[in-house]
């Protein structure tokens, strides 16, 4: 018994002795916030992304590697609005890290900084996995990214005062480039105005609001419930009567349902990168929107 305790202690000491990097440690729940932090902070921070574009942020395991990363984080940047409710509260509670508890400067929920859409009037699970605070998929409106960037840049400056000037300069520079890009995207996306879509999940609300597109159906019968054959049959009938222009699904959705509907209704299906890393071209936030628009424009021709 004593031997075991001694060896455990030795192990703990070895772990403690591992070199700790001086850079601010940022834990990003989703890749878009990791990418944004990287834009605003460059090499002043080390960013860890908890999820990838291939994963659904609703369904993530509170796995050991994530607990360890939250334990050491100086800043946790997440979407919030209950998107991560199945795993983030556990990580935060088990971390024993007072710097990133909700309410502390090291805890930032991006969705709290923007105007949320689709806040449900009725809360009832028979309507699917609805989020009481509104639709959490805010990252597909670049104007939201700009709002988050301002607060995030200032938060980085607050947490790491030594590099505050660098964060502020990078944030100002990013916003100039980003706002110019928004104007460019808005001009390019003019033909998409009024486009009708069938979506997979209710995750296009912000992109639609930005570009003036409209979703007229979703492959999921209820938010968070995978497509069923009965629902797809119903959707086929509806789309044959009043076809939408496009079927859109995200990089982490399985393509079967969209392909099924597309085959039967001859409505083109297009897959979009949902976040940074969701396609070859979506290497950063600029690439993400470039690619989303390019795919939508080419599919809607």
């Amino acid at each position, binding site marked *: 018994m004593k031997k075991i305790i001694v060896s455990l202690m030795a*192990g703990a000491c070895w772990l403690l002795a591992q070199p700790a990097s001086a850079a601010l440690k940022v834990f990003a729940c989703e890749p878009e916030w990791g990418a944004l932090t990287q834009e605003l902070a460059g090499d002043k921070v080390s960013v860890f992304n908890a999820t990838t574009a291939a994963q659904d942020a609703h369904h993530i395991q*509170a796995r*050991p590697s994530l607990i*360890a990363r939250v334990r050491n984080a100086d800043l946790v940047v997440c979407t919030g609005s209950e998107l991560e409710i199945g795993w983030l509260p556990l990580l935060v509670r088990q971390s*024993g890290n007072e710097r990133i508890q909700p309410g502390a400067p090291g805890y930032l929920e991006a969705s709290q900084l923007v*105007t949320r859409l689709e*806040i449900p009037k009725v809360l009832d699970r028979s309507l699917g996995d609805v989020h009481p605070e509104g639709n959490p998929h805010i990252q597909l409106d670049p104007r939201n990214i700009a709002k988050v960037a301002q607060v995030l840049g200032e938060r980085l400056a607050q947490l790491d005062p030594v590099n505050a000037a660098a964060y502020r300069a990078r944030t100002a520079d990013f916003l100039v480039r980003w706002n110019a890009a928004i104007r460019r995207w808005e001009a390019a996306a003019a033909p998409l105005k009024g486009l009708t879509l069938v979506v997979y999940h209710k995750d296009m609300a912000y992109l639609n609001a930005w570009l003036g597109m409209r979703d007229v159906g979703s492959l999921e019968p209820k938010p968070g419930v995978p497509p069923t054959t009965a629902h797809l049959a119903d959707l086929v009938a509806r789309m044959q009567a009043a076809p939408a222009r496009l079927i859109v699904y995200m990089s982490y959705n399985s393509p079967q349902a969209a392909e099924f509907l597309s085959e039967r209704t001859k409505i083109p299906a297009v897959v979009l990168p949902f976040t940074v890393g969701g396609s070859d071209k979506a290497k950063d936030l600029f690439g993400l929107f470039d690619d989303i628009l390019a795919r939508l424009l080419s599919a809607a021709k």
Partner: protein
Amino acid sequence: MIKQALIAAAVAAAVASPGAASATTDSDIKELREQVQQLKQEYERRIEALEQRLQQAEGVAAKAEARSTSAETAAIQAGTRPAAESAFNPAVSFILNGAYSNLSQDPARFRITGFAPTGGDVTSGKRGFNLGESELALAANVDHYFRGTLIASLQPDDSIGVEEGYLQTLALSHGLTLKAGRFFSSVGYQNEIHAHAWDFTDAPLANKVFLGGQLADDGLQLRWLAPSDTYFELGAELGRGRSFPGSNRDKNGAGASNLFARTGGDIGAGASWLLSLSNLRTTAQDRAYSDLNSLGTQVDNSFSGASRLWALGGVLKWAPMGNETNTNFKLQGEYFRRNEDGNLSYDTASATAGGTQTGTLRSAQSGWYAQSVYQFMPLWRLGYRYDRLSSGSVNLGLVDSGALSAADFPIYSRYKPTRDTLMLDFSPSEFSRLRLQVADDKSRLGASDKQVFLQYIMSLGAHGAHNF
């Protein structure tokens, strides 16, 4: 900018014209006047155009502002909660659980041969339709230091129990977390997980014989998470030792202690694992159970002494690219080894049948299980579990001395209980699950229990979050 240029041009023109008049001819002046006039008209036209554009822009901005203001108002309105005391109500969730069971053996005669009965809820259940345990959970932050959780279990026999009721520090910093109250012990892997989140209807046989199904003690727990990028956690518990393998005692101090270490990590993007090792020490005092002696008389035996349990548990979860929505796989297993050292007293409650005698007891017993669950398509999962126990060595002083025979302790017969379990479940949503489970349970020597369970588990209220 343009306005300034215009003023400058006008001033230049005004200054230039009188000076030029004296030195030049009338035609020159006329020409100059025409040019200035043209310039003036040109600028006026441009200013007008600019003003128009400005007005348009302002109009758009005002509209946008109005829109965003109304949207924000809507957001604020929707987010407003009544400013009453109830606004601070804790998160409430509850679990409904029920089953239909078909058992080929009488559950009243359920025994796991070779192991002392634990007094816990470890039987195969009731035959026919039966309501399972309903769980009511309340949780909220107490203040900026503490979080409180109460999980009450409402039993089908109309009794209410406190399954867990504990406070937990929110941020002691340095990776430390302290828990106090009643909580599931960190022994092995599955013990900490609530029954509604288990992958099978019932507990593994090893958990039944070594932990009385599930061990929840009253006490303290301190955990320390190492500041490394690799997960490594150490923990210690001090408790009352109120239930098996300990027993309720009227004594100051702690009746149970548990030390545990955990580590885990990722393998590529799709897989992650967790390993845990724990050592639980309890001191039992008159831990009683009933048996039948060689004459068929009921005897009340009780054990007093030290019980040490080692538990090694592990879990591996995999999903393609870490996206568990469509398919995923989970492999879980635990190994337990227990040594007990103390005295066993044997009491027939009638002097003619042997009376009361006490002798030493020294045992080394072990058991393990392994299970895997595969979600082969969205909503559907298939699972298999194998259980195996070894009664190991049990040395009874009363038998060695010849005072009694091994037949007087049928519960300690040498045996290796096994069980095969197959499970299929369907979860229409995150919040509901329907399960079919069949098992061939060879817990009792000479009796194979063919079990069929049809079970439902419903989660209501606040969205749950489950540990890895």
